[in-house]
């Protein structure tokens, strides 16, 4: 019931396979170390973790890759297209353009994907982190205080679950854009991503809040909480210093499973034309652009879609592995 092991578990899983190994001379092992050991022994976790690391590195180092690769996300190569706008050769692949050229607009697909990953991951990580914070605060408050506070939060939670997510996004995004920019003004580059993050947080906090609330309900009658209360601890201390450290394992699992669902949702919204706009590169929009040429240049759709698929797959596999590693039911 102390802070450190659970926090270590959080850190360990977040860092993935690259964490510090268990020290052999220790006899008693903390839960965090045990989880890390299990994670390191899991081959799927190592592979998916490495995949994730590559994706994240590519996204973070996008400007560096641009410099080494020699092509920017907005550079166009009209001389590599034929009269109909289709890329010359096989999808336009050559030594300078590893994944070919976008038909019509003539951009390099590889660098679009590199920067698209950056957009996607930035929105997903920001969204998931803010979701987590909101969900934890509301869940822990509802679970611990109970009474009418709990009733109100639970009711709002049920209400949010009744809102149809996609249709509500369609309604909200154009309205918000209209409200802030009117029909003709140029939108700021940051507006859409920020709006998407806001919508994701508003719709996604429910699962975390529900989970945390349930856990707190069973924890709040435990002796250590009573002891803290008896020794005069304030509400903030009780909630965030006593209860929260015991919840890190399940919270971490929801976080790691929230990330791929946000990646998918962001790609879907951009695919539908209400997510990230030109000229910001984005995976969903890349796929939607490619579908126009699916008959003649199918490889374009396949390349964009496969990147998204691999990203989601890596997140899901790693999330599953984290859950298995943290699961107290599994054998030590």
């Amino acid at each position, binding site marked *: 019931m102390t802070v450190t092991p659970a926090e270590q578990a959080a850190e360990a899983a977040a860092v993935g396979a690259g964490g510090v190994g268990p020290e052999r001379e220790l006899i008693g092992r903390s839960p965090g170390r045990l989880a890390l050991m299990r994670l390191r022994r899991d081959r799927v976790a190592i592979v998916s973790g490495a995949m994730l690391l590559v994706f994240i590195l590519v996204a973070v180092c996008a400007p560096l890759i641009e410099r080494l690769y020699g092509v920017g996300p907005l550079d166009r190569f009209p001389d590599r297209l034929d009269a109909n706008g289709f890329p010359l050769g096989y999808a336009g692949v050559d030594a300078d353009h590893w994944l070919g050229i976008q038909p019509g607009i003539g951009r390099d697909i590889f660098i679009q994907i590199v920067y698209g990953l950056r957009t996607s991951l930035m929105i997903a990580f920001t969204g998931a982190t803010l979701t987590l914070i909101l969900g934890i605060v509301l869940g822990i408050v509802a679970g611990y205080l109970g009474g009418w506070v709990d009733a109100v939060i639970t009711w709002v939670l049920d209400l949010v679950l009744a809102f149809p997510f996609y249709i509500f996004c369609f309604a909200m995004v154009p309205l918000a854009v209209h409200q802030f920019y009117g029909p003709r003004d140029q939108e700021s580059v940051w507006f859409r991503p920020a709006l998407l993050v806001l919508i994701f947080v508003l719709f996604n906090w429910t699962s975390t809040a529900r989970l945390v609330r349930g856990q707190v309900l069973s924890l709040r009658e435990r002796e250590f909480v009573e002891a803290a209360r008896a020794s005069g601890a304030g509400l903030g201390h009780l909630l965030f210093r006593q209860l929260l450290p015991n919840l890190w394992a399940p919270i971490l699992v929801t976080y790691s499973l929230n990330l791929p669902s946000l990646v998918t949702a962001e790609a879907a919204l951009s695919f539908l034309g209400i997510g990230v706009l030109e000229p910001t590169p984005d995976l969903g929009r890349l796929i939607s652009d490619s*579908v126009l040429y699916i008959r003649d240049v199918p490889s374009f759709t396949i390349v964009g879609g496969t990147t998204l698929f691999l990203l989601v797959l890596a997140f*899901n596999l790693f999330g599953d592995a984290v859950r298995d590693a943290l699961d107290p039911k599994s054998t030590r």
Partner: protein
Amino acid sequence: MLRFLVKKILLALTTLAAVSVLTFGLFFVVPTNPAELMCGQGKTVCSAERVAMIERRMGLDQPIHKQYVDFMRGIFVGRTIGSGETARECPAPCLGYSFRSDEPVMNIVARTLPVTLSIVSGAAVVWLVLGVSIGMISALRQGTVFDRIAVGTSLVGASMPILLFGPLLLIVLVYETGLLSYPRYTPITENPLAWASALVLPWFALGFLNSATYARLARAQMLETLSEDFVRTARAKGLPKLAVYARHALRAAITPIVTIAGLDIGIYLGGTVITETVFGFTGLGKTALNAALNLDMPIVMATVLLAAVFVVAANVVVDVLYAVIDPRVRLN
């Protein structure tokens, strides 16, 4: 049972009322000025009188709370929109008129809902039959080659975004091999065969992707049930294997699957917008998207409400089914 049902339905109605107030408030507080939108379709500049005339005709000159009451009354008993000589009779269930095309929203819903209904019903059959049976067989044959292939496929399939899978099906089945033609929706009343053949692609796309999740769920549930005492008792008293699996274990294992299937179907009925977009159908989701991009709020309002009704109704149905299927659930 009756009291339980009434309580559930009351709660559902409260949620729906809150959803309607919130959406109405959100859409109508934002000054999109629908009268100008309508009038702007002709290329001429709108005169102030014409805008005022349209506002009167649409009933937009009323205060917002009165507009809301009128809107809700229109759904249940019908209403007269506008006043004076431009007034129009709109029989129940009245959802108002489109800002853009001036078509009754009810007609638009009546045209597009069957499309979504067709997609979801067929896809649900595919994913339930395929997913549940694969999961069950997998659990009964745990550790065999079949099980391992099924587990691996469903693990990967659960991460496959429809943004990749839908276009892939199009590439493979339509453009490269020509096995199917690009789907064109025909109502079932006109030609059931053409209806079914057009829907094969979306059924397969949506059904196959979801069946991965369901196979995983069914397998886990079945494994858990098979390890329970009542299954051993049933075997020990000499019941044949098939009777134990089909009658005793299946009933217990299927309950959570019914819950999730019900909720999924409810959510999908509100619009399978990506599937519809990929395969070129104009269902509820696609209609909502287009309406939102055009700021055509009556249509958006109607689709949000309809989708919320589906979600909430699915919740009630699931709760009732739960009690019917699982004898362990006791209502009071």
